[in-house]
């Protein structure tokens, strides 16, 4: 089996072949490491999905998986399959930086719960992927180590904050990756890179070991090239964890079963609501065109598609840009040069307080500083009621809108993001324009319900990937998987290849 074939296979198919011993995990791992070698660098022009690669560790894990399989005891259905980890998840064997200078080179003394679960399940961590610094952004341009690039057009952004994980999956550097989604950081990169990205219900995947951005919104989830792959990974990482007291005791929804059921292509009896607020001005015609096609396909699958209005969703973006910075201003206070990470100005002359300020000034990028200051302002005694307090009330209204909509609909749908991937640099100096990329994804973070993005073909105007967002009630993630899997099958293969060739990169090396 050729390396180029291996890197284009889905995780489920790779797992089947590895477990049938048609190919070894070591071979599969090597194929992906070679692909990374070929297309990820150089940082200035390659995909640049990875901040850290652990080839040796990956091969050792792959060989361990092969031995377990040879002994007839694979650790899980995904044992032996490579995976990439967003670099805001702690790992004992690799540095964890959150793409920030302030944490450059930091070696955590503990694994995130999801990382420990991946290891226990026999998956093979390849390395750590790029992100907007501390997951604050929609393009990875805020990474202290340079942006990642969209494999379908290297001049464009791969989305963010989890652009590294999604571009790695899209480029065939890994079949699976983990991301974190605070306002859309898994779904929006999934949409613009033509991959699947899932934000599970808040509390169903442990956040222990996820470097917190906005604790009441953050949720870890899978990135993959197929709905079933995402579901398989979801089952590995999900479930209650004593290390995260916000993780829920309810059983994990049967997402793999739902993805398999959905793939049989029948949505009869399913009521799908189209959120009417997510259309119109600011939406790229090609995105709306692809979305309209998706609505038609869902109807053909037997679903009843209706329009629903969620009038308070208009408050989602402002509420998000108050709540997330507020929590971030507190979460990021710990980066103070005292116990770990960067220290600047410790020259005997400066006191601790000054060293803190100098370090934070030097170690944080502009977007992080902006959000810390906005959050500090929103929580200040003089503004709390008008800003943070009102944002919490907005959150209540958004929860109510969802509750009402889910009384009549099983799932809600919208475009994942209003536009396709925009050129790198286009919105870099306009934070407000950048924030619009998360317009459709933010409500589900505020309400905590499940939501995913599944590829929805290409935009007619620029040929770039478009994402379909499917939102389900809290703890009903399986519904979103079922609809997504049915749609995925019905839509059929793109005319574009499964993964981009990126031959230009290979020849420039």
């Amino acid at each position, binding site marked *: 089996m050729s390396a180029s074939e291996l890197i284009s296979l889905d995780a489920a198919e790779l797992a089947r072949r590895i477990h049938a011993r048609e190919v070894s995990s070591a071979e599969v791992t090597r194929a992906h490491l070679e692909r990374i070698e070929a297309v990820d660098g150089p940082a200035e022009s390659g995909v640049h999905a990875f901040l850290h690669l652990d080839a040796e560790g990956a091969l050792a894990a792959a060989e361990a998986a092969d031995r377990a399989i040879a002994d007839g005891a694979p650790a899980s259905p995904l044992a032996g399959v490579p995976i990439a980890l967003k670099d805001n998840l702690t790992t004992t064997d690799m540095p964890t930086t959150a793409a920030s200078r302030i944490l450059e080179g*930091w070696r955590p003394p503990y694994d995130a719960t999801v990382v420990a679960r991946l290891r226990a399940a026999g998956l093979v961590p390849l390395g750590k992927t790029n992100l907007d610094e501390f997951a604050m952004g929609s393009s990875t341009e805020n990474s202290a180590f340079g942006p990642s690039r969209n494999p379908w057009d290297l001049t464009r952004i791969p989305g963010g904050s989890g652009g590294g994980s999604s571009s790695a999956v899209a480029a065939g550097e890994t079949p699976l990756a983990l991301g974190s989604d605070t306002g859309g950081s898994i779904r929006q990169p999934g949409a613009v890179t033509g991959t699947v990205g899932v934000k599970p219900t808040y509390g169903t995947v442990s956040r222990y070991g996820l470097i917190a951005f906005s604790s009441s919104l953050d949720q870890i989830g899978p990135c993959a090239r197929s709905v079933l792959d995402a579901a398989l990974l979801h089952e590995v990482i999900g479930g209650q964890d004593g290390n995260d*007291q916000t993780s829920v005791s309810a059983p994990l929804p049967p997402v793999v079963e739902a993805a398999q059921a959905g793939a049989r292509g029948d949505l009869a009896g399913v009521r799908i609501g189209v959120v009417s607020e997510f259309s119109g001005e600011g939406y790229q015609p090609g995105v709306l065109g692809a979305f309209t096609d998706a609505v038609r396909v869902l109807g053909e699958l037997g679903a009843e598609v209706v329009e629903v209005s969620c009038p308070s969703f208009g408050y989602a973006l402002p509420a998000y840009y108050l709540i997330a910075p507020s*929590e971030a201003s507190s979460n990021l206070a710990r980066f103070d040069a005292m116990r770990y990470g960067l220290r600047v100005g410790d020259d005997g002359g400066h006191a601790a307080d000054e060293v803190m300020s100098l370090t934070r000034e030097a170690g944080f990028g502009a977007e992080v500083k902006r959000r810390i200051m906005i959050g*500090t302002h929103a929580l200040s005694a003089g503004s*709390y009621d008008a800003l943070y307090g009102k944002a919490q009330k907005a959150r209540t209204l958004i929860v109510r809108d969802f509750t009402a909509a889910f009384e009549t609909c099983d799932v809600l749908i919208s475009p994942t993001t209003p536009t396709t991937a925009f050129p790198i640099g286009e919105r870099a100096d306009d934070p407000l324009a950048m924030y619009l990329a998360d317009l459709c994804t933010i409500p589900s973070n505020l309400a905590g319900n499940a939501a995913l993005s599944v590829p929805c073909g290409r935009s007619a105007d620029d040929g770039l990937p478009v994402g379909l967002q499917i939102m389900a009630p809290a703890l009903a993630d399986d519904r979103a998987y079922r609809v997504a899997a049915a749609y995925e099958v019905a839509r059929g293969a793109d005319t574009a290849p499964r993964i981009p060739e990126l031959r230009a990169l290979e020849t420039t090396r």
Partner: protein
Amino acid sequence: MTVTVDAAPYTVEEVCERFDPVMGLEVHVELNTATKMFCGCANAFGAEPNTNICPVCLGLPGSLPRLNGTAVESAIKIGLALNCRVRERSGFARKNYFYPDMPKNFQISQYEDPIVFDGYLDVPLDDGTTWRVEIERAHMEEDTGKSLHIGGATGRIHGADHSLLDYNRAGVPLIEIVTRPIVGAGVRAPEVARAYVTALRDVLRGLGVSDVRMDQGSMRCDANVSLKPKGTSEFGTRTETKNVNSLRSVERAVRYEMGRHAGVLLSGGTVTQETRHFDEQSGTTSAGRPKETFADYRFFPEPDLPPLEPSRDWVETLRAGLPERPWERRARIQTEWGLSDEELRDLVNADALDLVADTVDAGAPPESARSWWVSYLAQQANTAGVTLPELAITPAQVARVVALVAEGTLTNKLARQVVDGVLAGEGEPDEVVAGRGLAVVSDESALTTAVDEALAAQPDIAEKIRAGKTKAAGAIVGAVMKATRGQADAARVQELVLERCR
């Protein structure tokens, strides 16, 4: 105009001719849970620096707090013991400020909704009356680490070159108990302050939720004092005195601040709202950090911890398990044991009340139990330089020794040797008796043999006894006692000597 007054020129009596003192007392208590508030690290005093730390209490990126259930129960118990209401729904908040001893640069605390609130404590005063101190709230929070300042003249913060941080204490569970303003105490304000902290300490000790050692910092008191000119209703500007590390200091600090405030006000100045530090040595306070403007802690709900909603059943179970209030228990014990006021006071002062009570519970008569603890054991503690509770003997062991004496196995003298053995780590009383061979020799044939041997060794004395000079028997008894190393019953030996010489 600000007038600096170093000495406190007015006595409490003088102050109260013109002013009414207003106090507020904030007491921080470290709970004696096995682990910290939000992680499984040991909650232990005096460990090697930075040995009881983990990703959570070190505030490492990605870590999350995990609330300690026992700490929550302790907080509820404290609230119930202070006649507080338990809030149906409470939660945690983040108090944001930067300080190197605080690993996350925010403290997880409770803000608008403390777990217990609206209570009171009826505090016994020296003259036998009680004073009701109203409790505003008691809430849970986490302690900070400790810093060591290097390079300064006295290890103080000023002039230090750098500091060294130990985070063992970071995350230790604290309960902060806040009173409502205490008004109307007048000249008794300093006494009320001390009596309140004393009563609170006794209640908490009775609950068993804290070591309440002010000397080790497991109980810390901040005293807020202000003066209100007589006849007005506006409270004056208050100061907050910290570092008050003993019960006596609470009283002294309040007295000093009352006098100092009066000095400032009567010389036409205004009291500055500030934190002051109490100096144990001089009994004075000195200005600390001025509270320039309102400190903006940017409190907001802690997103990493779900809310607390203690059920009625849970609260009632905890209420049912509350011990008697210490002073009520003392009154009951005094009656039951028939103690004089002085005897009771001696027991309390020697920290022996609980020990004696536990010894009685283990079966000893109150009089014997009390006698052991206040005399022989008190001497041993004194010699060893430890407190009675620290002595290496348990009330159950003392009770066993008392029982051995009562059943005739030990004489009082032997009993003291058994206690010495227990203190020396030789095991339980019965093991010491066996190990040292200390039981009274009650084997008649062995005793008879010893008597016969003594008589044979001193034939002239034996002759005198036979001749009816029974007083001479004393010498033979002495010899037998010596031969049996004091383990024989002297009265029985005397009888045997006379029998054998008949």
